[in-house]
């Protein structure tokens, strides 16, 4: 079976996100100062071959923990769908 994972990785809430801060600042320049607290993360999409959904989930989780996210500074969530 083939699955697609859609992974969202965000900087931890407790940490300053300078990129988000710069983008928030820029909202004023486009006259949308009502937009605040922008935080910028990453979206990663990948495909995985696995015998079942549970195995696919555990492999994607392993990929997130080992490489895709650094849990000292980021959190991640993902959704898996069968292709």
């Amino acid at each position, binding site marked *: 079976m083939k699955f697609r994972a859609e992974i969202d990785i965000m900087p931890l809430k407790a940490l300053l996100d300078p990129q988000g801060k710069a983008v928030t600042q820029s909202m004023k320049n486009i006259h949308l100062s009502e937009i605040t607290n922008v935080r910028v993360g990453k979206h990663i999409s990948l495909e995985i071959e696995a015998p079942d959904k549970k195995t696919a989930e555990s492999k994607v989780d392993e990929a997130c923990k080992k490489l895709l996210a650094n849990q000292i*500074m980021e959190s991640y969530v993902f959704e898996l769908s069968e292709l």
Partner: protein
Amino acid sequence: MKFGVVVFPGSNCDADMIYVIESILKQQVVRLWHKDTDLQGCDFIILPGGFSYGDYLRSGAIARFSPIMENVITYAEKGGFLLGICNGFQILCEAGLVPGVLLHNDNQKFNCKNVYISTENKNTLITQNCLPKQVLKIPIAHGEGRYYVDDNTLKQMKQNDQILFRYCSEAGQLSHLANPNGSVEHIAGVCNASKNIFGMMPHPERAADTNLGNTDGLYIFKSILGLVTA
């Protein structure tokens, strides 16, 4: 002493480091290509600065899984001496060889300038020739150097004397003004609990040649060689 400098795709401080070791320190040095696995019997391994793998994903995240890193990690876990500078420090953090991470600078700038760092622990291989709290002038060049570690780990690190350097003023005062990137407690360099793995953001290899008008980096290199400086 035989030094090994690991070269990743995107390393750009390897040549400066090799020049200092070979031409200034007069020591043997070999390049260790990231796709090799043989550490060639080196006594001291350096992960140099640069932008390994274009800083893709996170600085150091991909380099950390380069083929040579498996043996570098085994070597360091057995007590082998390992120093990571700038991107090398980021790789050490990603590999979990030293605690913490290096985040984007709080001021959203790539900072390339001389800074002052205070020697916070002079009882390590790379600081033994420094005086306690000795201030060194060493250049930095990074966009992601904001050292961060959680409070509990930081507490343990302090109890175990793992803070090597802190950003400071020329007179040695710690302050937010002297901190170029927003690092927690002004930290510029750390080591692991066993004190054989060292990571620092400033570049001592850029301050080791009289022709450059600054040789403060030699305090670190001569410490490594166990030489006594006048």
